[in-house]
């Protein structure tokens, strides 16, 4: 075979790996009942493909071929090991005969089992850290090193999280399935939470130098799209809309020198129109369902901003109304704070300041730097310079991120 043809096959296999490896893995996990066995089988199936396709050409349905070969190889491996460990022999027998033709299974419509994979990886019995690591590893195909890099965590820590999560799934018998109708809303929350955490980690790193780690946000949006494709629940649609609308402002939210630019000061011509158009369409779809929740409402708020060509054209009345609904759906001091800022835009700084001071008086958000910087901002606009200075300083004490700190320092200098 010529060098060119070999290269050709390699490129084809690479492409199929990119497009299909997650689906093949998801099916292998169901067939083999074990994450590690399935990963090993996936690897062997692709290695075999590289050799065999070079001689025999591509099969009619590469995905089915890979699943069959992966399963075949895995059972074969277990058999071989079973000679040394009798407990494995039974497992191999339960998994079925290896003598059957691995290419017999030529079903064009093997169910897309990535949804099972997503729900199992995001099962709330796993810690949130483990849910994120396992989802990025198995659903998105990130390497351990890539996850470690993205979360500024040492690779062994991530590796350990993944190993523990897999043993918990196996030992505690967490099922590999899409939850039943009654459990679905709660479990979907857990999945959406993981996707949004990944998005936020990319959108605004909680510490360190980089404000935006684009890869994670892009991956979260990709995951959000996959979820909507597999399970078009209104809140999944709402979350995708929310991420797209936030992502659309990426280019406008930092200055060339890396300083944070607030929403009302952003150059709105830099906003990504394609993402806004798609976000607005999705939000309509989610709102129309009348079964929406917090993500959809937050997306609706982002949509009001997206529709305003200039900051002073923002419909604050509508934003406050959405915050009122949001507080009912999901009471939280952080949402109250955001509502206070919206009220200040609608009714003037005094009204917003009163709400924030009520939150502080209850003992909430005292350690939350955004609350102090919002307090500082409203005080400044009312000419209460000393209060503003004290609050900016408090916010600075609590903030760890470079671009936020620079923003606060600039505000302090400008007082």
């Amino acid at each position: 075979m010529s060098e060119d043809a070999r290269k050709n096959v390699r490129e084809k296999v690479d492409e199929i790996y990119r497009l299909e490896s997650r689906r093949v893995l998801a099916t292998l996990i169901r067939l083999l009942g074990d994450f590690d066995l399935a990963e090993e089988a996936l690897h062997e199936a692709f290695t075999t493909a590289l050799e065999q396709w070079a001689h025999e050409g591509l099969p009619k349905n590469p995905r089915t071929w890979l699943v069959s070969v992966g399963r075949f190889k895995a059972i074969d491996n277990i058999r071989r090991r079973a000679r040394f460990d009798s407990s494995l022999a039974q497992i191999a027998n339960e998994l079925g005969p290896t003598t059957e033709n691995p290419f017999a299974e030529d079903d064009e419509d093997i169910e897309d089992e990535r949804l099972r994979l997503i729900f199992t990886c995001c099962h709330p019995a796993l810690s949130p850290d483990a849910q994120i690591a396992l989802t990025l590893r198995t659903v998105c195909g990130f390497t351990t090193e890539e996850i470690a890099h993205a979360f500024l965590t040492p690779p062994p820590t991530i590796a350990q999280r993944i190993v523990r999560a897999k043993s918990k799934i196996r030992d505690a018998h967490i099922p590999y399935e899409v939850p039943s109708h009654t459990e679905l809303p709660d479990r979907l929350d857990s999945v959406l939470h993981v996707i949004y955490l990944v998005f936020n980690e990319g959108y605004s790193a909680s510490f360190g130098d980089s404000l935006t780690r684009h890869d994670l946000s892009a991956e979260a949006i990709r995951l959000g799209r996959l979820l909507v494709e597999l399970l078009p629940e209104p809140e999944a649609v709402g979350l995708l809309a929310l991420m797209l609308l936030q992502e659309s402002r990426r280019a406008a939210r930092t200055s060339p020198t890396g300083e944070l630019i607030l929403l009302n000061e952003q150059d709105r011509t830099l906003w990504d129109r394609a993402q806004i158009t798609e976000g607005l369409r999705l939000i309509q779809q989610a709102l129309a369902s009348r079964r929406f929740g917090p993500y959809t409402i937050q997306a609706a708020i982002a949509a009001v901003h997206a529709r305003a060509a200039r900051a002073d054209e923002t419909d604050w009345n509508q934003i406050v109304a959405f915050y009122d609904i949001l507080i009912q759906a999901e009471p939280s001091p952080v949402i109250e704070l955001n509502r206070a800022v919206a009220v200040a835009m609608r009714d003037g700084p005094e009204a917003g300041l009163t709400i924030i001071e009520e939150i502080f008086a209850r003992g909430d958000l005292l350690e939350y730097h955004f609350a102090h910087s919002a307090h500082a901002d409203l005080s400044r606009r009312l000419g209460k310079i000393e209060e503003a200075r004290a609050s900016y300083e408090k916010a600075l004490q609590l903030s760890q991120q470079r671009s936020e700190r620079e923003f606060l320092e600039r505000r302090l200098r400008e007082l």
Partner: protein
Amino acid sequence: MKFLCLVHEEPDNGLGPQTEQEAQELVNEHLDYDETLRQSGHWLYAQALQPVETATTVRVRNGKTSITDGPFAETKEVLGGFVMIEAMDMEEAIQIAAGIPSARMGFIHVRRVCEFKSS
């Protein structure tokens, strides 16, 4: 009356099994002791538990179920299993608990079972 013997392990104290073979021997010893208690009429039920890392906590508040990972043992002791026994009194329950093989490497909490009557 019924007593529950909660079998705790102290994985870091170096007294537990060190090899696979020792672990298997400990399992056999437990099974033998179950059989002894069964024959003497003390045995009601016994089970070992999967490692504490598999623990999951379930709460229901305001009708909403919350599921979380853990709890993980903050201290150096973990619940590894339990034996439910029938005994005359605490004295006899203590004697039976002292015979549980894991008492030599961890410890056993003995609790009398509360037998409620519905009214």
